[in-house]
């Protein structure tokens, strides 16, 4: 592997000694410089009460984040499909759904809301997958 390549650093970071992850561009790594990823499941009541999942990312900045969701048991949606987050309000089978995904300097937060307007439907187990990128989402 050659030591040749190209680096561009942000203002205040040495292009010679700065860490790869602190470069604006480095030919050593792909543009997305690695991530923290994982998955989870949350039981969501259909009474409009938000179920909030927080993932403390431990990064010194607000990261870019990507997420997907899936109806684990196929109660409403095909369990074989994953859909991107966030999801704006939409109705399906008499229930309204809204799922959000956001990041701040401490947490990535995923919120699940389902509301069947008093029909008394059982909780739905939603599975989620997340990818938190080391790159800065906001400088």
């Amino acid at each position, binding site marked *: 592997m050659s030591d040749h390549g190209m680096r561009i650093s942000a203002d205040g970071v040495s292009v010679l000694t700065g860490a790869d992850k602190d470069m604006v561009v480095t030919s050593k790594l792909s543009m997305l410089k690695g991530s*923290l*990823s*994982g*998955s*989870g*499941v*949350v039981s969501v009541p259909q009474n409009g009460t938000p*179920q*909030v*999942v*927080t*993932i*403390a*990312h*431990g*990064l010194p900045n607000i990261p870019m984040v990507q997420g997907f969701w899936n109806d*684990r048991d196929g109660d409403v949606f095909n369990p074989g499909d994953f859909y991107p987050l966030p999801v704006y309000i939409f109705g399906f089978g008499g229930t309204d759904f809204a799922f959000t995904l956001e990041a701040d300097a401490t947490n990535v937060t995923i919120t699940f809301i389902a509301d069947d307007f008093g029909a008394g439907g059982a909780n739905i187990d939603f*599975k989620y997958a997340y990818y938190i990128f080391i790159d800065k989402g906001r400088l």
Partner: protein
Amino acid sequence: MILFYKKNTGEVFGTIDGRVHGEANLNAFISPGLHPEEIGKFIIGWVEKDGKRMGYNLDKFELLQEFESVSPVSPLDFKVDLESGNLLKKDALVQNAELKEEKDSSDNEQPNDDAPINV
């Protein structure tokens, strides 16, 4: 992989991927609205600190490979058995509980008068 589970039920509700976990991974934390003291961590793989690696639950490494593959085996279908601290599939836990219940009920059965009595 770091598995997060509810300490009261053992149910795995979240994961962080990976085999070698540095400080960044260990500082990360998932919570579905629970207090940190209600959440346990089960690590499969290595923790790297000060350049040294320590293995955790490496007897589950083949299971970890299944979690990472495209197989339908998901860590979210597992539970930490609160008695043994072992990681078991939820179905297996139900079977174990049923077997234990059967055993308990047979232990509690009235003694058979015809059975030999050892003194």
